[in-house]
């Protein structure tokens, strides 16, 4: 078998160095090479960071534009990087932008792509074998990519960042790509509120669902989270339909995968797309006033009751016990 040529890309610098770790796990018996791609101005720093973390090469695609090009521009940039390196495997960070880009890229190359892979390995034939969630996350599919190139996307926070190496050995190569004028014009842009905390690292999570009636009421659950040394997270309706919590606090299929010691689900029905994000919790508590809510089957301890009564009562009991 030949040396595995692996190309990695994410517009998010943190995710990019996570992909570096993922890429290294896929080297074959003959070894491998990871090329990190960055696209757009002022990404040379990011490329350098990849090299000091052991990337074998960094390709900086300069597009002439003043900012990160739109998705289509990223696709054209990646096509250029693919021409330059002829990779066996391409790994892309499954942010929203990355998810969009990888699908367009794979269609341009007329090849499949495995989305949102939770696990990756090489099978005996050297093909990329992956595991991903299907049917809302209740099931795990094992799939094999065949042909070339083999493309997979990987969610952020799935792999640890690659460590710094003693001595960087790779070098930076610059490629200039002429992009056509963008078909999509940006009229206005607002940064989305990001959390100061990383829910994927939290040991205690109090999660809010639509059982919480008003945004102000979240402070009750926040108090509980703080008392227990934990953080507040939420379901999709609270992190998208309304922006009560930042989107990076969404737990579930289209959000974060968390693995706290304790997960307290308050006013959450327990649809499969949510459950899949918190399945790794050591202990799950559900507070829901509907005895038929599916969350109860996914909990170690259930209270069938009104969160507006149970949570204050729990905080009371906790403060009293702490004092004695």
């Amino acid at each position, binding site marked *: 078998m030949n040396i595995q040529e692996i190309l990695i890309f994410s517009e998010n610098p943190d995710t990019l160095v996570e992909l570096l770790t993922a890429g290294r796990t896929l080297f074959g018996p003959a070894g491998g090479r990871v090329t990190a791609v960055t696209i757009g101005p002022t990404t040379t720093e990011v490329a350098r960071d990849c090299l000091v973390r052991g990337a074998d090469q960094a390709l900086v695609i300069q597009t002439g534009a003043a900012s990160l090009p739109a998705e289509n521009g990223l696709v054209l940039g990646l096509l250029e990087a693919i021409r330059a390196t002829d990779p066996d495997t391409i790994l892309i960070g499954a942010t929203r932008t990355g998810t*969009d880009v990888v699908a367009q890229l794979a269609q341009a190359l007329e090849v499949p792509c495995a*989305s949102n892979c939770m696990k990756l390995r090489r099978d005996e034939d050297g093909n990329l074998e992956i595991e991903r969630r299907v049917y809302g996350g209740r099931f795990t599919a094992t799939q094999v990519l065949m042909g070339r190139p083999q493309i997979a996307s990987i969610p952020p926070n799935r792999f640890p960042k690659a460590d710094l190496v003693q001595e960087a050995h790779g070098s930076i190569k610059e490629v200039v790509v002429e992009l056509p004028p963008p078909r999509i014009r940006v009229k206005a842009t607002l940064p989305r509120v990001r959390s100061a905390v990383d829910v994927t690292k939290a040991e205690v999570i109090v999660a809010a669902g639509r059982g919480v009636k008003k945004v102000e009421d979240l402070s009750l659950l926040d108090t509980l989270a703080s008392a227990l040394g934990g953080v507040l997270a939420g379901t999709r309706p609270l992190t*998208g339909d309304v922006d009560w919590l930042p989107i990076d606090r969404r737990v579930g299929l289209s959000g974060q995968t968390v693995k706290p010691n304790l997960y307290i689900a308050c006013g959450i029905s327990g649809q499969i797309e949510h459950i899949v994000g918190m399945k790794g919790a050591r202990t799950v508590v559900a507070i829901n006033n509907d005895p038929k809510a599916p969350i109860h089957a996914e909990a170690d301890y259930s209270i069938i009751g009104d969160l507006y009564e149970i949570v204050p009562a729990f905080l009371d009991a906790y403060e009293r016990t702490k004092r004695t």
Partner: protein
Amino acid sequence: MTGTSDTRPPNILVCVKFVPDPNQLQADASGHPDLARAPFRISTFDENAIEAALQLSTRHGGHIFGVSVTSGQVPPRDVLLRTLAMGVEVLYLIKDEARLAADPYRVAAVLAAAARAIQSAENIPSWDLVIAGEASADQFNAQIGPRVAMALDLPAIAYATKLELQHGRLIANRATDERSETLEVDLPALVTVGTEINQARMPTVLQVMGAARKPIREIVIEELPGIDLDALERRPSLRTIDISAPPSARKRIVIEGQDAAEMASHLLSRLGTDGEVKF
């Protein structure tokens, strides 16, 4: 329908997938999905896609066509009719009994060919807008929308949260992980949507009855104009080798008590014993 705005009445194509309802899908004794016993439904975000089309059409007139690739068995008629009851005018089914379109690359290639075939069969000068759900509720690949855009050479706006047509242009809000954006694009274009964009309507009894009179047009995939099945056969593939569910091992203890205070203190002592809450 007649347009009441400065925008030409749009021709909208909505990509719809019928899926076994993930929330009603159980594992069989061997841990594999018991697909035969899960009811079909319109994939969640595709209902939002239909609703988004209906809202544009209410303002600007035009026509809404639905297209779906059905893999293996065709879903029950009442599930198909629901798209028409919601307001889709004609539903095209691309029947793929042999499951030739086995991965998103192939499905997108088929949908792109279908979009062209429907356009010519229905005498539509050009699609103005193609709308798809951001991801399907069963496979959750989140690939079809952007892939179809690439295959049809359309600009794509994924994760749209608001759509407006003005002077032949689409103004869309969308959210990436980092930013909320307002974007503008000349038609034709493709967008993908999720639950954030709207609340999909429940068809009324009258609409459900009326749906039976609307056309469902079937094309078997082998006869779809413009599709190169040999090429699809030869291209690299994505094969599923297993689908299984890990068993859930939760304790499932319901905490009893006279009132909130008692339940809360029972819960606390359980969590204290388990070492999950420290004092």
